[in-house]
């Protein structure tokens, strides 16, 4: 089965973000989305550690340890940026002021439940960070992920078996094989990549998928 690369998935997500949107890109792969935002529009990137108007990575030698993103990587601030403290930053999120957040996932259920913070393994060191706040706070939660886990199992599932991050919070999933919307009737295929077909995806996920033509 051919699909698209992680960079292409990031590009696809970037293309769906409208001018003027307030967006939080989660730690890890979702940060790639920033590289593909068009230059001719203005997207406001929020990082939960207290900055709105986050810019690109700094040049070597211009790294500022006080200016980092949620993944603790050095970033820059655009003209027009603003700093604020943690309670204000999460109020922004919880209060529904962010249009979109993009998160990674271990599993997404057909009801939009998200599991992305813990595998539940007994020896794992747990860490949740801002994932639950983002999942419950942003107007739209997009997931960016491979369709299949390394084990080959589908990350799209009937019900999550990993510990939940949020209940019914995901609206859309961008994968290397296809893009899915979460609907009241389960997952709906929104876009297909490479030689994927709905039948192929149903086989890979073991799920019945909705489909009414590509968007």
């Amino acid at each position: 089965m051919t699909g698209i690369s992680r960079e292409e998935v990031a590009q696809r997500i970037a293309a769906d973000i409208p001018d003027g949107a307030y967006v939080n890109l989660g730690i890890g792969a979702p940060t790639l989305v920033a590289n593909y935002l068009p230059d001719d529009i203005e997207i406001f990137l929020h990082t939960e550690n207290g900055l709105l108007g986050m810019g690109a990575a700094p040049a070597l030698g211009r790294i500022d340890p006080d200016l980092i993103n949620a993944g603790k990587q050095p970033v820059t601030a655009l003209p027009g940026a603003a700093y604020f403290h943690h309670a204000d930053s999460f109020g922004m999120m919880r209060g529904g002021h962010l249009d979109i957040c993009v998160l990674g996932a271990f599993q997404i259920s057909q009801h939009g439940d998200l599991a992305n913070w813990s595998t539940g393994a007994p020896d794992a060191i747990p860490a949740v960070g801002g994932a639950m706040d983002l999942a419950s706070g942003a107007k739209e939660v997009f997931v960016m992920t491979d369709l299949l886990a390394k084990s080959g199992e589908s990350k799209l599932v009937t019900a999550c078996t990993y510990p939940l991050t949020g209940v019914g919070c995901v609206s859309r999933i961008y994968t290397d094989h296809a893009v899915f919307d979460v609907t009241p009737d389960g997952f709906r295929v929104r876009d297909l990549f490479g030689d994927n077909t709905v039948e192929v995806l149903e086989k890979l996920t073991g799920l019945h998928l909705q489909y009414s033509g590509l968007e």
Partner: protein
Amino acid sequence: MVDKTVADVARAVEGVPDGATVMIGGFGRAGQPVELINALIEQGARDLTIVSNNAGNGDTGLAALLGKGRVRRIVCSFPRQHDSWVFDGLYRAGGIELELVPQGNLAERIRAGGAGIGAFFSPTGVGTQLADGKEERTIAGRRHVLEYPIKADFALISAYRGDRWGNLVYRETARNFGPIMAAGATTTVVQVDEIVDLGALDPESVVTPGIFVDRVVAVGSRRWVQDGEFVGGVDVEGEPVNVETGAVR
């Protein structure tokens, strides 16, 4: 005359008792009050409960405090980092208790402590393990869990500049938990790069008013700032680098 400045970090952390709850500012290394933590290690208080977003990284600062076995319990959102080996080892060996709190609930609970809110209903974490056993209520059609304030005996935080009344300004994302922890502790101790004259901070731009601050100590400029100007030349940990290659010098 009110003068909250103290001469050195040892005096700044005087009186932290064994068994105290101590908030420690910072998000990763940004805003972590490393000099105050080192002084707390010297001071010797043990059996501490620490409230901090992370559980330390590398072998310095908060990680060193944990490494010395001074911490009984930690309340944080993100203990696991690529370099959190000190915490990881303690946790796996059963040597530290962990209360894991979603980051926004952690921030809001600290804010509630400082602002005198008895408890609040939060939509974050509903339906997850981290809400297990918590009171739940549906308000305006949305599920919420009841969260209680977090208060501390001491807060140790890092700011950029302060004055003798304890007014503070921060620097960039190193602000993070500083303002809410300052308000949430009985005794708030702040390390700043520089103590400035009263009136030198613009009253429109003061982020933490002095009412929340008890002690201020100057620890000198951060390496990447000279005379108030960003000069760079470091990596994200603050270590000097070769600006051509990025290699640590």
